[in-house]
């Protein structure tokens, strides 16, 4: 168990887990989690983490790579209608990969600082824009609970206006689809697969508990990079 944690720690810096080039095409691979599947209990069960990572995220990656290959072929052949037809699959599967890669970094076990509120400039920004951390959490939870069907709820930074925003996206649409200047700081997956086995249909309970394992350090790093 410790060895595995060591190995996964090293791969933290790999970012989106980009891997081999096939005929000049860059495909992606499943990034390792920087913690064990069971490390986020009781907020998120190990069973969910394992399925979410090994099945759902992996499926998005597999299908994204497939779509990329097909896109590459279609572009080489100049087959415009296929290029356009593939956009849906690329947005969905690629978005799934992008979103989940951010999500894993948004979470961390309690003993590694999960749930600890942000200090520094992000903490100040939250108080300025939302009044308090409690207000922000309430807003994110209510918007997350209100998402109909599948989607995500985000805390984002508008890097042009230097403003924090709470947004939701449908299905696997990345935050950038809501605004080209939006940078995701925190994303919470509200697809049923993210919580169903543990919380059944009570999404509000999942949203209430996930804050205990949110990694504000990561969100602060992203924020400080955009707003030095």
């Amino acid at each position, binding site marked *: 168990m410790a060895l595995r944690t060591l190995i996964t720690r090293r791969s933290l810096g790999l970012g989106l887990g980009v891997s081999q080039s096939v005929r000049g095409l860059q495909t992606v691979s499943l990034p390792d989690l920087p913690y064990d599947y069971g490390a986020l209990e009781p907020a998120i069960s190990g069973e969910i983490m394992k399925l979410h990572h090994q099945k759902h995220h992996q499926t998005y990656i597999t299908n994204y790579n497939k779509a990329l290959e097909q896109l590459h072929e279609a572009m080489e052949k100049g087959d415009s209608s296929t290029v356009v037809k593939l956009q849906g699959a690329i947005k969905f599967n690629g978005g799934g990969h992008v979103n989940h890669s951010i999500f894993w970094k948004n979470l961390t076990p309690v003993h590694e600082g999960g749930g600890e509120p942000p200090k520094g400039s992000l903490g100040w920004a939250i108080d300025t824009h939302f009044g308090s951390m409690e207000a922000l959490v309430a807003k994110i939870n209510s918007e997350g609970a209100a998402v109909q069907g*599948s989607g995500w709820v985000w805390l984002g930074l508008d890097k042009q206006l230097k403003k924090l925003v709470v947004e939701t996206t449908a299905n696997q649409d990345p935050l950038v689809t809501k605004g080209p200047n939006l940078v995701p700081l925190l994303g919470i997956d509200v697809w*049923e*697969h993210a919580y169903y086995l543990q919380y059944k*249909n009570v999404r509000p309970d999942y949203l209430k508990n996930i804050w205990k394992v949110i990694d504000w350090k990561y969100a602060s790093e992203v924020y400080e990079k955009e707003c030095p």
Partner: protein
Amino acid sequence: MGYCCNNSFPASSHVLLTDLSQRWKCPKLQNLRHKGQFHGSQKASKVLAFYGLKAPPYKLDALEPHMSRRTLEMHWGEHHRGYVEGLNKQLEKDDVLYGHTLDELVKVTYNNGNPLPEFNNAAQVWNHDFFWESMQPGGGDMPRLGLLEQIEKDFGSFTNFKEKFLEAALTLFGSGWVWLVLKRNERCLAVVKTSNAINPIVWDDIPIISLDVWEHAYYLDYKNDKGKYANVFMNHLVSWNAAAARMARAEAFVNLGEPKIPIA
């Protein structure tokens, strides 16, 4: 959504007169009630239209092992019930949407593509009623007679239809439903995917069977294996009896062609 209510609603959608003494919002009357002087007109003078939770036409464990009792208890008892209660609560606020059948309510709240807030609940109530009835214990197998002929006519073969249906289930992004519909304008059967709560009746098409591919429909039994769930539905759950009855009714509205009269 999902908060279990212990009231038992009648299992049909009627307009009912109800005693509103608990829900009366007028403060003056509330005071009177508290003072115990309010007797005569406690019997309702306001009509409330609301909808009931319809039970599936089989026991909750009748679809085992293909769809567990656990799933039915959650899916029908929590999700479907939640939509009914959510809808009733929304309708309490205003009488603009009163007096519709559920079919009408779905189309009205769809509002030609700009759905009103009640649409999600109304459509999901309709969708789930239809879904339970699209399944039966010992389902699967194949349709027969007229329905089979129509499927073969519009898809080439039953196998081809089945493939199309399963492919639709696998390629639906996010939450939604897969339908076999009779298209009114084209006058043929087709496989259609819809997102979230959308329902082919908003386009005036006639659904014949449906499959719920929201994750809550299969996650407890099949985890992320949507393909296996869809296959099991086709092979063991789908009720071609219900489909045939719906098809027969649909043919009263859609002229599928001249009957083949044998030449003497």
